């Protein structure tokens, strides 16, 4: 398959997935207890009967279900995700405002956990059965079982409250007036704890996968051939074993992207990180269903973005010539 066809089929698949989420959202609104108009308006904003009637007309709530679905999908396609009566703003504006912070957080956590997980996995596989290996594997097991939000809280407690090393709250120092490089460093210092705690679980996942994959590939015939050719051990490890061992890790990383994006809700809540995860948490307390479903849709789109990224990485490291996915 040519690159164009791969990208095209990926795009078609993404669009179908997004449409399916939109349809799911539509049915969720109707699954909520009460009148869909009331649900969309949010409970407090719904006091005015005239306004409700207006909503009914706009969303065609007296029309048959299938027609209503059409109207809903058409609205979303035009990027109309409804209005947040709690925050007095269109949902799409609220999300656009918060999205950069979430992208920064999740992409950093993704990159850090992938790099850290692969490095630790390679280290453990190289010393399999020895003390380093058992130490790394045990720590990974512990990370694997730690609730994400609890790890975040404990990190705040230790590194922010007790030691005072890093800020445990927010995106940047409020009212500091920093610009340029000082501001970037300030944001970075705020980013460290959320990104590390969000990536903790995934570091463990990637580490275990890398370790197992390295051990499996190292028993394969082409590795024996490389050894028989007399290649130095370091070259075999890097060029022959690692590159092949990374493929399943990258595939897994793509599959895990959804969990990473979902986990951001917890991290952003603990760290008061001004992203869409935090927006989701706020809309829960306010019963702001429009915002809730809007964030859900956008988080689905983010997962697709992550999948495309991992696809690109896969093709970069795949050692086979003219590899197809």
């Amino acid at each position, binding site marked *: 398959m040519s690159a164009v066809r791969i990208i095209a089929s990926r795009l078609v698949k993404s669009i179908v997935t997004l449409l399916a989420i939109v349809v799911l959202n539509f049915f969720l609104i109707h699954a909520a207890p009460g009148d869909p108009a009331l649900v969309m308006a949010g409970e407090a904003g719904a006091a005015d009967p005239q306004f409700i009637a207006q909503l009914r007309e706009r969303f065609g709530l007296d029309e048959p279900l299938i027609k209503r679905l059409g109207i809903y999908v058409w609205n979303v396609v035009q990027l109309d995700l409804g209005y947040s009566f709690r925050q007095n703003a269109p949902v799409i504006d609220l999300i656009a405002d918060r999205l950069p912070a979430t992208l920064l957080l999740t992409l950093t956590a993704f990159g850090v956990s992938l790099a850290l997980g692969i490095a630790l996995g390679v280290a453990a596989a190289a010393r399999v059965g020895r003390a380093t290996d058992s130490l790394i594997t045990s720590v990974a*097991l512990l990370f694997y*079982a730690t609730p994400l939000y609890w790890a975040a809280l404990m990190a705040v407690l230790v590194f922010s409250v007790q030691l005072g090393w890093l800020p445990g709250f927010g995106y940047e120092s409020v009212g500091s007036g920093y610009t340029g490089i000082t501001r970037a460093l300030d944001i970075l210092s705020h980013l460290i704890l959320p990104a590390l705690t969000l990536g903790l679980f995934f570091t463990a996942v990637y580490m275990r*996968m890398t370790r197992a994959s390295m051990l499996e590939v190292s028993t394969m015939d082409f590795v024996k051939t490389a050894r028989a050719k007399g290649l130095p051990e370091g070259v075999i490890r890097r060029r022959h074993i690692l590159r092949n061992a990374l493929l*399943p890790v990258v595939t897994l990383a793509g599959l895990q992207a959804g969990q990473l994006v979902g986990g951001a809700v917890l991290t952003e809540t603990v760290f008061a990180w001004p992203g869409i995860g935090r927006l989701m948490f706020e809309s829960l307390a306010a019963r702001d269903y429009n915002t809730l479903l809007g964030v*859900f849709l956008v988080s689905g789109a983010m997962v697709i973005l992550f999948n495309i990224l991992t696809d690109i990485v896969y093709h970069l490291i795949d050692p086979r010539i003219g590899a197809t996915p």
Partner: protein
Amino acid sequence: MSQFWSRFARNKGAVFGLVVLAIVIALALVAPLLYPDGPWKMVQRPFLVPFTNDAVPLGTDTLGRNVAAGLVHGARVSLLVGLVSTTVALLIGVPLGALAGYFGGWTDEIAMRFTEFFQTIPAFALAIVLVAILEPTLFSITLSIAIVTWPPVARLVRAEVMSLRKREFVDAARLAGLSNMRILVGQILPNAISPIIVMASLMVATAILLESSLAFLGLGDPNVMSWGYMIGSSRTVIRAAWWLSFMPGVAILLTVLALNLIGEGINDAMNPHLARKARA
């Protein structure tokens, strides 16, 4: 079976997990006897530091409720939601995966597209949306967790069934005139049971983490005390009373760790020649 146990017992981590899980289950069972007043009652002044009063060994929370009572009653909810949601997820994933793997073709195509869709959307975000819209109750929480955790089961069962359906014993069963359903349920699935058991034990762990995360965000059943709720409700006072967030977290960590260790132990004991193969 005895061979299985002797292999399992040789795995120190798995035995540790089994002991921890046994303690958690025991505490959950005797919770109403230990603390008959339930976890919601105010027993002492608020913010009582742990190990200062023998009647409330682990201190009190922001409203003077007994933390120890909360922990043992919370164990009931965690285990219940973990077990039931895993069962429901198996009830969705096993039949879907089995049909897809056995019949192949269009059945497989449709079933796998469906599964893929559920695997693409962010699981935790979907769980949040479902619980929020259905209102948080034990029922909606359990159902939502099942809805977001079944896809890996379907994929696993599909792969197992696909590799088993080409084996001789299936051909023999077909020649003997057994129907497709009887071959699938009576012949193929029993041979795929061990990886399903391993996955189930890991899924209980995932479900407990998910339940606690939902409760942390305020999406717990308001009528039951849970570990996630305890952490969520005390996170704003973490500077003044760190133990309120710390202890339920340790309870979750230990329980989830125990389940993971047990799952790994079962895996290694069932497939001794494949031992230590990582799970994804």
